[in-house]
């Protein structure tokens, strides 16, 4: 069973249109959602959680339509961390425990306080006096403490320093050691996603450019660097994107459409999406 499946998902907000988003996140996997600011990542996550009304398309979470009555019950199994932790400022970690205990049937108080201690979060300090890193850790602790099977993280590590980010990514890795657990994570920090994800989906200007296994992307694409003269010999349908200087061309190409004797450099996820996002093909 797939953890998340969207088909033909569309949403229009004024001038912005999110179009035909088809995503499949198999259970037990981590999918990274990448894209520039305003590409439609957060809108996609809101649509997945039915927090905004879709114009068309379908969303199924762990086999349940997110518009069905059962979805509310299913939310017990979904931990969500948004780009900010939106707890009221006057609450402290103990208050958050009490609220969540009355919200989630599966709330695990012991696990929550283990995370609070592990993250060195002061229990009585008010939320407004927490640093951004502490606030996000509190949100992550809350998201992980009701035995979720699916974690949805919207820019949850954005704005955090590398040490905290690393610590949090390790927790997500720990989470997916259980094969029934899945993660959908959106982030600007592609290096983080490359580190932990099995699948990468790239949204650009409201369109899904690709959604594929990370390793398959590495197999499929390569980077070539050559003179402008030599580049003229390259089959143009193999070129996904290029950067040209006065004498040299650097291009992302589809390896299967290139001649057999060609040498490629490895294309990382960041290179792949940067070349794809460039207009001057």
């Amino acid at each position, binding site marked *: 069973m797939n953890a998340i499946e969207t088909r033909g998902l569309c949403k229009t907000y004024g001038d912005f249109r999110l179009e035909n988003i088809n995503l499949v996140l198999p259970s037990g996997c981590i999918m990274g959602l990448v894209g520039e600011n305003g590409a439609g990542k957060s809108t996609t996550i809101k649509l997945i959680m039915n927090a905004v009304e879709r114009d068309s398309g379908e969303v199924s979470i762990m086999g349940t339509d997110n518009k069905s009555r059962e979805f509310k019950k299913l939310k017990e199994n979904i931990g969500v961390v948004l780009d900010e*932790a*939106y707890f*009221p*400022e006057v609450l402290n970690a103990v208050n958050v425990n009490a*609220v969540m*205990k009355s919200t989630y049937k599966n709330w695990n108080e012991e696990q929550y306080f283990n995370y609070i201690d592990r993250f060195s979060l002061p229990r009585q300090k008010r939320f407004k006096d927490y640093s951004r890193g502490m606030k996000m850790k509190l949100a992550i602790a809350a998201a992980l403490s009701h035995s979720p099977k699916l974690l949805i993280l919207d820019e949850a590590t954005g704005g955090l320093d590398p040490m905290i980010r690393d610590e949090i990514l390790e927790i997500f890795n720990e989470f997916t050691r259980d094969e029934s657990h899945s993660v959908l994570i959106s982030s600007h920090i592609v290096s983080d996603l490359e580190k932990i994800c099995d699948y990468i989906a790239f949204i650009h200007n409201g369109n899904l450019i690709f959604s594929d296994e990370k390793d398959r992307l590495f197999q499929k694409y390569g980077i070539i660097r050559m003179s402008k003269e030599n580049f003229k010999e390259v089959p143009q349908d193999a070129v996904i994107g290029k950067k040209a200087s006065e004498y040299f061309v650097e291009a992302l190409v589809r390896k299967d459409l290139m001649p057999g004797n060609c040498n490629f450099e490895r294309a990382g996820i960041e290179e792949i999406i940067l070349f794809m996002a460039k207009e001057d093909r």
Partner: protein
Amino acid sequence: MKGLLLKDYYTITKQIRIYLLILVIFAFLPGFPAFLLALVYSSMLPITVIAYDEYSKWNRMAEMMPYSETELVLSKYVLGYIAVVLIWILSIVVQTVLELIAGIKGDSLTDPQYITLICVALGFEAVILPLMFKLGVEKGRIILIALAGGVTFCASFFGGKLSSIKALEADPAGVMIISTAAAIVMNVLSVLLSVHLYKSVKK
């Protein structure tokens, strides 16, 4: 919904303390209609919570939790009901204590006139909450002030002549029954309207 109410309680703990303090102080002032003041304050508590929610953007997070839109809206009404009923009970307790200790005897707060006042407070809540869900607290408060000014103006001009006031004096029990029914109908319609408005604003 218990989690939502608990969150609201933690959010306004400070306000509740001040509120209780004011209530106790006014309860000792002879002739001052502490009950009326407390009722008005109680029915305004949901607005205070909505303002805090707007500031912290709590609803963005709550929408990801196992709560329906109806529960998110209804919890604000329930908070208002709890506040109004609690203040009624508390006022009766304060009055009883004053009577026992100082021999000060006021009206019985279980009289029909007082039940009617509670219904008016609940009716007030039914009117203001859809405004808050549609316009947000900042704009909603402006409309609320304009409404309150309009009602006060009308009351000062026509108050004595209104048949309902005369009826309240003549048949308090009858007015209580009618106002109870009106408060129930108004609140049912108000909740339905607020859920619709909340969904339309959210989407």
